[in-house]
């Protein structure tokens, strides 16, 4: 049993720490301005490029693309990214795209894409949910019809984060019109500058845009099929398991809690017993959340099944993030009411109060996650489908 990383465990984390030291408030303010310009959730190209230059993208992938790093090494690096307050969404979404190709792609796809993922040239988003297929993802209707060496895609996708700045979307489509549920689905890598694609912004509470993406007779080369035709569900479930193993709120909340603690440092006498208890409670819960999250990383490193423990960690962290920020804003009072203001901590708290509302939805709602925990982790029977 060991909870303290040694130098080898922390190799990539420490590389990131050195980068972080370059960012004082003016540099962070510039990063935030870039994120605002891109109109996107926690994604700055300049920082993504900085990671690429430091060879910190896809570190777990085998050489020559990655560095054959262990999952726990990546865990510590990702944790550092979030707890230092850097925009980490670009890294995770692009690594997810690259990882999917590495697991399922043809040698030609791997040779084309992977070098360009690690260099920061190719970027990816997901095309999964649809207006009529949210939690019930398998109800999706977007279709792809084979015509010679191409697929012709028609349909619409919703909640496509970063589609307006990505090179490709990993598009889940129905290639067998007679197939139902997971049968007859396929995964296509679709260049987002293809004719027939329309990307429309959907403004969300966090302050950025996600996208609705419409496909009108979009022609996609058949060589962009990832995995077998009709095998799209197997391809995408690997992505979903990876996504559920991410931290959704708990890790970033540690930074908010640390900033709150420093702001209130030496002022315990001004807090009620109730608030002191709640502060201790959140310090404890954030430790517990980290351990649940860390366990998923260690299990993945050992090749163990994380399909139950990942969702369990996701629910725990995302709901904790919401409870914390509601309490913290209550505690800090009126200045957290305003998106604009001179006090950066208050402004950030106000933003997080909005951002946190989505954490229990993105990556699958808490209700869906609890279904998975009940079925896969506890072995309870599934609810019969109507």
């Amino acid at each position, binding site marked *: *049993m060991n909870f303290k990383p040694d130098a080898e465990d922390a190799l990539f984390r420490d590389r990131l720490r050195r980068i972080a030291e370059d960012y004082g*408030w003016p540099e962070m303010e510039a990063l935030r301005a870039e994120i605002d310009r891109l109109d996107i959730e926690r994604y700055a190209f300049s920082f993504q490029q900085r990671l690429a230059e430091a060879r910190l993208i896809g570190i777990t992938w085998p050489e020559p693309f990655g560095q054959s790093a262990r999952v726990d090494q990546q865990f510590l690096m990702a944790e550092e990214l979030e707890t230092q307050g850097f925009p980490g969404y670009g890294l995770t979404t692009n690594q997810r795209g690259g990882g999917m190709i590495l697991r399922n792609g043809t040698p030609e796809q791997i040779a084309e894409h992977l070098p360009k993922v690690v260099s920061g040239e190719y970027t990816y988003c997901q095309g999964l949910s649809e207006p009529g297929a949210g939690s019930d993802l398998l109800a999706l209707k977007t279709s792809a019809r084979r015509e010679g060496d191409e697929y012709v895609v028609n349909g619409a996708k919703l909640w496509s984060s970063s589609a307006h700045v990505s090179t490709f979307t990993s598009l889940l489509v129905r290639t067998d019109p007679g197939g139902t549920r997971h049968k007859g689905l396929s995964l296509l890598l679709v260049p987002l500058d293809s004719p027939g694609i329309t990307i429309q912004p959907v403004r969300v509470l966090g302050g950025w845009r996600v996208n609705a993406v419409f496909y009108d007779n979009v022609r996609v080369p058949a060589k962009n099929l990832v995995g077998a035709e009709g095998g799209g569900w197997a391809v995408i479930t690997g992505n979903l398991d990876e996504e559920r193993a991410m931290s959704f709120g708990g890790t970033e909340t540690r930074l908010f809690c640390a900033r709150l603690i420093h702001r209130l440092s030496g002022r315990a006498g001004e807090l009620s017993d109730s608030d002191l208890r709640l502060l201790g409670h959140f310090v404890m819960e954030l430790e517990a959340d980290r351990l649940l999250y860390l366990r998923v990383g260690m299990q993945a490193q050992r090749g163990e099944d994380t399909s139950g423990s990942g969702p369990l960690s996701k629910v725990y962290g995302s709901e904790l993030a919401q409870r914390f920020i509601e309490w913290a804003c209550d505690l800090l009072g009126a200045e957290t009411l305003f998106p604009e203001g001179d006090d950066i901590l208050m402004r950030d708290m106000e933003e997080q109060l909005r951002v946190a509302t989505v954490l229990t939805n993105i990556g699958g709602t808490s209700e869906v996650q609890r279904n998975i925990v009940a079925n896969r982790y506890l072995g309870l029977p599934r609810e019969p489908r109507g």
Partner: protein
Amino acid sequence: MIDERWDPEVEEIAQALRKLLAAECPRDEVRRAEEQERGASAALMAQLQAFGLTEMEGSAALFARTAFELGRALAPCPLVESMPVLALTGTPGVVWGHEGYFPAAADSAALATPDGLFRQPLPGGTPRRTTAGDFLTRAALSAEAVRIGDGALADRCARFALLTGAARLVGAGFALLDDTRTYACERQQFGRPIGAFQAIGHRLAAVAGDLDAAELLIRKAAFTAAPEQGGDGAPPMHFASMAWAKAVTATRHAATSAHQVFGGNGFAMDYDVQLFSRRIRVWAMRGPRADALLADLGRMVLDPQRRDALTLLWHHDRGIPLPRWAREADAVPGR
């Protein structure tokens, strides 16, 4: 390399103990012990003594993992209460506590006071039966008390007791979750197992999250107790407090949920839910109030000196440092 699992040698002993307890401490034995004069099973105690538990030496992790198994089996003997003194002084059979109630089945106690740790025989008299079905006897510092250690040792015992007490609670919580899960798979209502209803599944998923979190906190608290991690054989106060507080809330959650899932059967004395539910509530109440410990943790992190002395909290080696940009941005309120 980071590894959140118990060390193999600790796990091996725990699994051997689990096997012994499965044979020697079935639920009927727990029920029988409640009818004994001092609420303990002498036969089980003899078996555990032969196993080596009463004179065990080892790390805080070994004691915590062992306490988990004793809790899981609801072992009716005062072993978990004697662990702090055994682990930290090597003296067997002495239950630890502050002035107040001690397990009546023990012969002697170590009383923690601000002046140090005092050992004395437990008074005779009529023990009182608790809600949990065990028996306690009241003790205050007496003329017979012998000082066996200073205030620092008393403090270490207190922190160690939080760890092993938490482990016992969480062991019981997991056993109860197992029982509840099995029942939810077998019990049919409205033509299907009740575990197929989301109302049941979601409730138990939440319990599983709480218990897993509590158990992982116990592991890390035990890890921080090791001298090579800067510990003094017992976890530092912030980890002892977190382990105990989470164990209390998680196991109360498990107990309440078990009663709900079992429905009316959960309240029937013939079912085992009550065996766990009563003990979880009593064991939690015999320790310090979780709310008070958490409030002190809140004070701890707001005191710069105490905060900077914290070890291994979250992902930090020491203290709760801020990134450079946040130190600059947050330094002057109203900037």
